[in-house]
């Protein structure tokens, strides 16, 4: 019951904040709503008993990305943080597309009979930090050191690229 309340609350926050995040007139507010979404998402991870993910979500998203956003917003505030009149055509077409997408994907997922039992965390599938560590650093099946390495290069490159573009010379 508690999880249900928690889920519905989080779901409500996510949906409402998402909507607000994409409709807020002020960029700063939009960023704040995004923060709510991200935090609520972290909550979902917790509900699904992914503690590590929860932590990463909070630190990387809420702590890292959002800060970047806020920097950018402030940097460009000269014209980015003011009220913007909506472009009706775009809103309508966006709305239609989005609604269609929701309908289609939801129909597909609902119609598809996913076979699952209630998730039960057992010692075998409990995600411990040790397991995560091994998976992250292992070279076998279901182990991800290669992905990790490539990802690190991705991050490095993006950092270089970001600096390259953003710096003033």
């Amino acid at each position, binding site marked *: 019951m508690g999880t249900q309340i928690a889920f519905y609350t989080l779901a409500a926050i996510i949906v409402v904040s998402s909507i607000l995040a994409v409709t807020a007139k002020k960029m700063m507010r939009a960023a704040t709503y995004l923060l709510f979404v991200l935090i609520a998402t972290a909550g979902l991870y917790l509900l699904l008993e992914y503690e590590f993910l929860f932590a990463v979500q909070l630190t990387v998203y809420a702590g890292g990305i959002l800060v970047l956003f806020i920097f950018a917003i402030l940097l460009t505030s000269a014209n980015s943080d003011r009220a913007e009149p909506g472009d009706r055509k*775009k809103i309508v*077409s*966006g709305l239609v*597309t989005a609604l*269609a*997408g929701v309908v*289609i994907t939801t129909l*597909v997922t609902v119609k598809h009979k996913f076979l699952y039992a209630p998730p039960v965390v057992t010692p075998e599938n409990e995600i411990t930090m040790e397991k995560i560590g091994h998976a992250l650093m292992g070279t076998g099946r279901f182990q991800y050191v290669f992905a990790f390495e490539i990802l690190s290069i991705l991050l490095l490159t993006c950092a270089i690229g970001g600096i390259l573009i953003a710096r003033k010379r």
Partner: protein
Amino acid sequence: MAFTLFILLIPLCVFLLLALSGKRLSAGVTGVIGTLGMAVVAGLSCFSAYRYFFVIGQSGGNFPALVPFSFEWLRFTDTLSIDLGILLDPISVMMLTVISTVSLTVHLYSVGYMRGEQGFQRYCAFLSLFTFSMLGLVMATNIFQMYVFWELVGLSSYLLIGFYYTKPAAVAASKKAFIVTRFADLGFLIGILLLSYCTGTFDFGELTANNGLLVIGSTTGMAFLGLSAASWALALIFIGGAGKSAMFPLHVWLPDAMEGPTPVSALIHAATMVVAGVFLVARMFPVYYFAAHDVLMLIGYVGAFTALFAAVVAVTQTDIKRVLAYSTISQIAYMMTALGVSGFSGPDGLGYTSSMFHLFTHAFFKALLFLGAGAVIRAVHSNEMSRMGGLRKHLPVTHVAFLVACLAIAGIPPLSGFFSKDQILDAAFHHDKVLFVALWLVAGLTAFYMFRLYYNIFWGKERTYEHKPREASWTMLVPLGILVVLTAVTGFFPFSKFISSDDMGYAAGINRGVAASGVAVALIGILAARMLYRKENDRPAQLAARMGGFYRAAVEKFYIDEVWMFVTKKVIINCVARPLAWFDRHVIDGVLVDGTGRLTEKIAGSIKGMQSGQVQYYALVFIAGALAVAVWAIYI
């Protein structure tokens, strides 16, 4: 008889020699080469005639068809091929002598007539080419060989009519001659195709053997529009002949062809080439007679109509060469009619014999007329009757020659024209009275217009001439002399002994009644002409005025040229070719081809806006596209 090959080869070699050397040879040398070559050919021809008729002679009752030389030139199928060869039989040998003789006289005459003209070398070369082609035509062993030389004859005619190529009228006339005859040749060609399709052969021997049995046998059961295949084929072939022989309504080219040098007119457009059609029908005569008698009837009527028509027009013309041209048309039609009224075998085949006879005699006296006219024209530098008169004093020799020829064509005995014409009338009289009356009238008209011509030139009012007319040089007078002699004597040949529809020979007499009526009507014609034209008076004008519209129509050649012009220029060119050319440019090319290009460009232009530069629009298309694809893929 293999030496007959040289009859063909010599003119060809002369042509090649003269054509390739061009202006490197002087005019004199050219004339000598041409004339000498032709003299040899004439000699050979006469010799071969002598050999054929008298040395080889009849074997088994008839004159054999000899093929001394033949080779396969172009093979079509296993059975069909164009062979080039030499066929000697009575009519071809007769034609050889006619062509080579007339050609010789014309060559000789030309040396004098064309003196000082630019391009005499070219002229001689073309003359040789013509002689070669015409000889090849008459000696053809098969119908396709005949077609080959038929075309070559047409070409040389074209080249010679257009000899004065800087004169627009000559150019137009040559073009007209070629195209009209070409159009007729199309019929000839289709006829050949049809005939060969049925019979599987081109060979004259096979076609005419056994009274055309092959043709009859192979075309039974095939009919179209009520006519048998044989009739169709032979009618089409006759169209070819009608074109060359200027039968109505394909005669329009011949009067215009007088734009060529006068000796050319004499040789090609009077004596030889224009009778090719008659020769063709004669060559195929058994087939016509047995396999397509209806066509033969048609030939008779077309011939008679043409003869009458041309004679009427000839009466009204004032250009002397044109008068002669219409006279030629009329006389050839005479021969055609004779074929049309002919029976087969023995005396029944009188029409056939007389046709050939008339061809033979006509060649000489018509050549004589033209050459005489040439001498006159050269003397007064004009073709128009109105510029002539009283020339008998200035040109005495020409005058005599011309008079002989006029008498001959009018059918006054004992000149050659009388005999042949009488036989034709006789044949017509026994076959079809209507045709006889027509021909009889034509005989009268012929005498009339010929003497109208004669009196207008040599009598009538004395004109003043810029240069005093002088008698022509000996090179021109000698040929006249030769022809006068021939005109006078050829009538006495026992022609029917040698040339008959079944190659057997028979003795033909003179039907006194018909002969008398013929001579009578000719005399009436001559007298009428004498009354009207001997002294200048206003009777002709009054007469013309009284005739009214008919006279004017006849002067205008009954507007046949205009009809042709209408059909070709207005209908074919303007209503078919021009719209087609337009259609090609604007519909096929404009709409289909360029249109495709334009459409593509237009589409490209109209969808340009899709690339709006708005990244959100791109995203919209991206996502909507993905969703659409997904939905479509799920429900595939």
